[in-house]
């Protein structure tokens, strides 16, 4: 993958198992600089502290859900450029449309494969390269 392997990721999911799986998959793809948050509110705190270049988030979480996190990121001047990839079990079409309208960089529906994650990341990096 063409992207900088030092790129800093934030993985947001309320289940530690899923955070571990995503972290492992990112490691397989060469990205070892990964931090975790267990809901949108904690994620936002970490993002505000700075240093992150990519957000991978679940949708359905306590305190602050993934869509609200995405909307908040897009409306915050110093965060709005961040790519946000949603990995979620929410599979209603209106969910996907809502995420797209809110400015999601990608949408992966669970259960997903390592190949899908790799493909979506590549696509997002390509878009970022053009921008």
């Amino acid at each position: 993958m063409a992207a900088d392997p030092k790129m800093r990721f934030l993985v947001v999911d309320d289940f530690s198992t899923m955070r571990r799986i995503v972290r492992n998959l990112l490691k397989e793809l060469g990205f070892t600089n990964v931090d975790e948050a267990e809901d949108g509110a904690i994620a936002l705190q970490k993002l505000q502290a700075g240093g992150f270049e990519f957000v991978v988030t679940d949708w359905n979480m306590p305190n602050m859900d993934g869509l609200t996190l995405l909307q908040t990121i897009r409306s915050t001047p110093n965060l709005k450029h961040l790519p946000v990839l949603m990995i979620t079990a929410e599979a209603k079409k209106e969910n996907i449309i809502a995420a797209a309208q809110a400015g999601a960089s990608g949408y992966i529906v669970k259960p997903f494969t390592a190949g899908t994650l790799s493909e979506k990341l590549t696509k997002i990096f390509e878009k970022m390269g053009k921008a």
Partner: protein
Amino acid sequence: MSATSDSPDLEALFDSIAATAAVPVATPMPERPVRLAPGGGGAASGDNDELQELFDSFSVAGGAEAKPGEAAPAELMAATDGDVWPKQEVVFNQIGQMARTLHDAICGLGYDKLIEKTVSAIPDAKDRLAYVANLTEQAACRVLNATDIAVPVVDDMAATTGALADRWELLFQNRLSVAQFKSLAEDTHKFLRNDAQQKTALLHSQLTEIMMAQDFQDLTGQVIKKVGGLAQELEGALMKLLLQVVPETKKTEEVESLMNGPVINAEGRNDVVVNQEQVDDLLESLGF
């Protein structure tokens, strides 16, 4: 009041609700039937405090216009009788009738026993589901721990065998000295005899660990079947009951939400996607 004949039933129902809700009872129990007794307007002095509270709460909600809340006790009873607050009386009557219908439906059809039985099983079901969540989480952790151990071992073996293969390649190209060949043979022998043996044994044990971590499925499967059976019973009982008491127009309403979790059964639904391809197609059709 039209509900006069319902007094004993309703009274019992309301008392049971009041008891379970742990509402402090301001007036002694024996005084309650007096309030609802036929023509009991004048005998209601014991309930003044409660009525006053009720009307005060209305006057707070209604703002300055709700002066009747400060009226004398006798006028209060007149008000509930419908002279001053006709709309409220209609609502109270409707609530009374609904409660009556619900009460009759539950008792008349024997659902009270069924619901009591299923509701009492809910705490047990909660424990069972917590057990499932616990076991599956443990299993996920065991598997992830095993892969955390196994992956570096595999990577290490891949690196070692790769390096050996490169050196053997040089040998076949006649680019190794005798001393280098001797060293290669020794290294290869050492790898095959020690590293490979140890590491494959370690990998084998981790694969066994992953296999054994699946033992939850037998246990959770049984528990989930039991909880599923309970849910079915409860659903059946509540559904029959609801169909009797819910107005026709409410029966087709669906709960709309963006947080539904995984789609359990997508058959016959066109509002959901079933795989990543459909997600991608949808996004593409939207221009993303």
